[in-house]
């Protein structure tokens, strides 16, 4: 269990450091980048549950982000508390995960991935058509200030909220890695036929993971809407949003506890930070650098940043055998 203690210590250290940043740093742009980093780390980890641990690569995860963002938009516009949006978003995300996951989670490989693109496109079409979701116009939230409105003039409280969500998601993932669900998912990922033959019900456990993953992403969606105060189909439902989430998951390392955070750090520093310094993303330099890094990781370190570190550590401890066995089974 010393590994668990190590992870908890690392998480604690990160919390202390980021709380210090939240209160110590005055520069609002930097704080916004930290907030974006934490939000994408949560989204990447949520994606990691179904695509990393369970092995169903999704290119449609933005629909769950949209559940949260639109829950905020609808409820706040109707005069309700944005805190209720967390509940409404979670319920919507669970329903959407079950309705879309039940038929598709049994599809193999690329057929599943393309199905997630199709599902996300259909969800976007629905959002554009349903009148009370405001179609292409989306929602603009009124500018307010304070905890009851969940809106703040400065970015400090947003960083704290995102940090709290990040900690909750990391703890849940730590628990997943040590739980029956976690073992089942990894068994299904390694070899679903073998896993099914010992009585693991693929649909049931993957649906559970998918629903949990959807709830996490929806909470991030609420925070996103409360921060940007604007929600419309392109900003939360575009294919590029889903692909950004997936790339974060894989750059860090599929099925690892710290992978999504590492991937989000690379994404925010490169895609957002570089764009800021090179004067907007219109010139494409940010894409060149980010694309080159993804290419290099895929070719040289296909296990991702954290995946490579984990494997190296196991090799030193001489416990790589279990991994090799799992790879053999796959």
């Amino acid at each position: 269990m010393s590994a668990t203690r190590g992870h908890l210590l690392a998480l604690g250290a990160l919390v202390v450091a980021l709380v210090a940043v939240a209160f110590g740093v005055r520069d609002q742009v930097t704080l916004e980048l930290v907030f974006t980093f934490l939000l994408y780390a949560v989204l990447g980890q949520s994606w990691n549950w179904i695509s990393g641990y369970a092995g169903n690569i999704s290119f449609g995860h933005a629909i769950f982000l949209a559940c949260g963002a639109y829950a905020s938009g609808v409820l706040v516009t109707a005069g309700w508390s944005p805190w209720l949006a967390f509940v409404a978003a979670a319920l919507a995300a669970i329903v959407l995960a079950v309705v879309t996951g039940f038929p598709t989670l049994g599809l193999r490989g690329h057929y599943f991935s393309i199905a997630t693109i199709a599902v996300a496109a259909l969800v976007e079409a629905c959002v554009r058509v349903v009148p009370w979701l405001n179609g292409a116009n989306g929602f603009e939230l009124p500018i307010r200030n304070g905890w009851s409105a969940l809106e703040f003039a400065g970015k400090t409280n947003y960083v704290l909220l995102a940090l709290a969500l990040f900690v909750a998601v990391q703890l849940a993932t730590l628990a997943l890695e040590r739980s029956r669900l976690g073992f089942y998912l990894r068994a299904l990922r390694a070899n679903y036929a073998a896993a099914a033959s010992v009585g693991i019900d693929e649909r049931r456990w993957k649906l559970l993971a998918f629903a949990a993953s959807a709830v996490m992403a929806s909470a991030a969606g609420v925070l996103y809407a409360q921060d940007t105060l604007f929600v419309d189909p392109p900003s939360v439902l575009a294919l590029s949003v889903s692909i950004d989430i997936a790339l974060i998951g894989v750059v860090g390392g599929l099925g690892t506890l710290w992978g999504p955070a590492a991937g989000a750090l690379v994404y925010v520093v490169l895609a957002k930070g570089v764009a800021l310094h090179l004067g907007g993303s219109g010139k494409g330099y940010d894409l060149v650098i980010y694309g080159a890094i993804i290419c290099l990781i895929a070719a040289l370190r296909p296990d991702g940043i954290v995946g490579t570190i984990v494997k190296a550590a196991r090799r030193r401890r001489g416990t790589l055998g279990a991994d090799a066995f799992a790879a053999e089974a796959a």
Partner: protein
Amino acid sequence: MEALSTFGQLLVAGLLTGLVFALVAVGLTLVYGVMDVVNFAHGEFLMLAMYAAFGLALVGIGPLVGLPLVAIALFLFGIVVYRLFIRRLLAGPPEATVFGTFGLLVLMQGLAQALFTSDYRSVPDPPFAATLHLGALALPQAALVEGLGAIVLTGALFAFIEYAPAGRAMRAVSEDRTAATLMGIDVQRINTLAFGLGAACAGAAGALLVLSNPAYPTVGASFALTAFVVVALGGFGSIAGALLGALVVGVLEVLGGYYLSPELKMVPVYLAYLVVVLARPQGLLGRR
């Protein structure tokens, strides 16, 4: 009567659109069939070909004369990309090819944006700009040329895979890599050839598409997304499936655009994909 003639016009337009999708999809499905790789950068290969055809047009070489040149250039580009990059991805876990080719997509889009800016580049005075009238049907000549090109290209590729020795070797590799190796087939060579051919298909497609489309950095993505659905609908790795899937998708998209709204034109396409794949998880003509 008028509703019927509108439907006929839409059907023909849909089939022509479908042939354009087939043009983009055959290269994708060829690469998948031989080496199990979905090349997510296939659309960017197409984009590169469109810029190349545009450049040739600027120096006075029209798209149809330029087509073989662009196809050969893309063939060589594909070989280089395979040797330097894809080969390494194949040595890693399966998801490495997915994200590696995604990285290539981002990199190529970024380079195009940095080098050529986001401006739309259209071939000046393109040939086949007129419209052909057959009774009540109005057929843009460019679409007819593109459709004809798609049929020739798909037919040539199909004949190559069926009858040429290298094509038979490709089929052997796609059926059983280990057995093919034991029979003395150099899998790396076959993979290289297949990836080059897939890129050459994108090259030919790009040279034809500039007849009716401008070149810009993200032009490939718009075609490739549909091509992925086409390939999955027809069955990954099946060339006949890609052609059938492309025609189905083309017709559904045009009908959806007319009877629903242009914004919702892809809704029937995606619904059809989900229905097909839930009933037949391997797609229309795919192998299990």
